[in-house]
């Protein structure tokens, strides 16, 4: 059997409840013995699951249930305190889309920079540059040599989405980004996501939209207060999530 693309084992991450940092220089250099009883909580704990190649998984849960944190750890931009999240192959993270972009550089420079950060060589970017700009749309095309901050936020997201989905990496992580962009662009995004899925990509999707979840995901993971509550076909998972939410509302 092929090894899972995403392998999450006993994953746990602990946060400070208050923003106050209790770290002292002495504590850092020595071990964290005797650290003052500062209040911490586990944002996620004992999370284990596998995702096979080509699977589309939707992550469901209320606000603060740890969805985005889990996604970040899979993307490798946050490190767990317990267990591990292993991904075989590179990841295209549709999280904080415009994170790798800088306002003072032109859109063109930004595309090269951000694609470079995600591991593409100059030649690879050259080859895909037109594809990226085409997808972002004609308004963007006209302004590629404009400072990035002069673009509207919607346009910025368009470029970023076009770039990241053009990276052609085997694992795609999506965090609520489908809600952005106007209607025409959203349709384009949906289409591209479907193409990626049929092209054998592995998709990991966080969304509050049942419509999006049902459209893309076959399997659902349900997170509640840092625990993995259920793992099954997306319809069942959504039904369980809704039932829980209704029960909460009733009580």
């Amino acid at each position, binding site marked *: 059997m092929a090894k899972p693309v995403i392998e999450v084992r006993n994953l746990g*991450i602990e*946060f400070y409840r208050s923003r106050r*940092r209790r*770290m002292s*220089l002495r504590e*850092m*250099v020595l071990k964290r013995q005797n650290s003052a009883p500062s209040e911490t909580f586990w944002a996620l704990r004992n999370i284990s699951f596998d995702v096979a190649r080509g699977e589309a998984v939707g992550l469901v849960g209320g606000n603060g249930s740890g969805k985005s944190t889990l996604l970040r750890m899979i*993307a*490798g*931009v*946050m*490190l*767990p*305190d317990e267990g591990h999240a292993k991904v075989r192959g590179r*990841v295209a*993270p549709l*999280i*904080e889309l415009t*994170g*790798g972009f*800088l306002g*003072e*550089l032109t859109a063109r*420079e930004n595309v*090269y*920079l951000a694609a*470079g*950060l*995600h*591991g593409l*060589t100059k030649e690879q970017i050259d080859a895909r540059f037109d594809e990226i700009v085409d997808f972002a749309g004609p308004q963007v095309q006209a302004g590629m040599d404009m400072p990035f901050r002069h673009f509207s936020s919607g346009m910025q997201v368009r470029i970023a989405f076009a770039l990241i989905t053009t990276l052609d990496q085997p694992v795609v992580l999506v965090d609520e980004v489908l809600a952005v962009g106007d209607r025409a662009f959203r349709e384009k995004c949906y289409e591209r996501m479907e193409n990626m899925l049929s092209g054998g990509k592995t998709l990991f999707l966080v969304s509050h939209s049942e419509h999006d979840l049902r459209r893309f995901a076959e399997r659902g993971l349900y997170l509640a207060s840092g625990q993995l509550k259920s793992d099954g076909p997306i319809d069942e998972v959504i039904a369980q999530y809704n039932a829980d939410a209704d029960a909460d509302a009733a009580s």
Partner: protein
Amino acid sequence: MIGVSQFRGLMANRQVVRTLVERDLRVRYAGSVLGWVWTVLDPLLMALIYLVVFTVIFQARRGGHQPYFLHLVTGLFLWQWFAQNMTETSRALLSEARLVRSANLPRELWVVRVVLAKGVEFVLTLPVIAAFTIFYMITGQTKLHWTIVLLPVSLVLTFLLSVGIGMILAPVTVLVNDMARVVRIVLRLGFYATPVLYSADMAPPVLQKLLLFNPMSGILELFRSGFFKGEMNILSVSSAIVLTVILLFVGSIVFKRLEPAVLKEI
């Protein structure tokens, strides 16, 4: 071993480091040479001021190597690179928080990249030092010594030392709010605790022993050697090498240990 895996990760991403360094330089030199002028002007003016203060006002009989102006220029240029490395690396993760959060790259890269970019700037100022050296050679006040071939070694040492300390400063600054202020004060003290204005052999024996614990002291010794008599305090240079290796090792451990906490805060 911890340092080795970090080094491998950096080498695998050298393309990215290059992109980032190029970007830094492009932002700094956006379309003009004014950026370069600023890099050169600051230490040159300081050298001029110190020259006036020590030779005209204090009338010091001997202030470091002769010619004293060349002594000042060599010291101030190298010190400026090191000092900028310290202030910039301490901000390296915070100032690029958005990039750090969105790209899965070895986080050490953000430190290395700053030191490299500042290093390129420093190398671009070397012609100024060369020009003064040639001037003093023509006027017969100094001559180059074979130890000038060790100059690149002193630059590599400055680079490694800065990366080592930077790997401590960058994550600590994220977690401890007032670290930037501490860095500023320590740098100001460090300027006088390093033989930039004077030369180490002028200090009384006790202080000379203390200077052995300042790695920049030995590195400066190595850097200047070729410009002046070609003498150097081998003990001070070897101490600098040992300290650099230790700091690089400590830095990579501290960085690895603090990395998870930093990523939560950023």
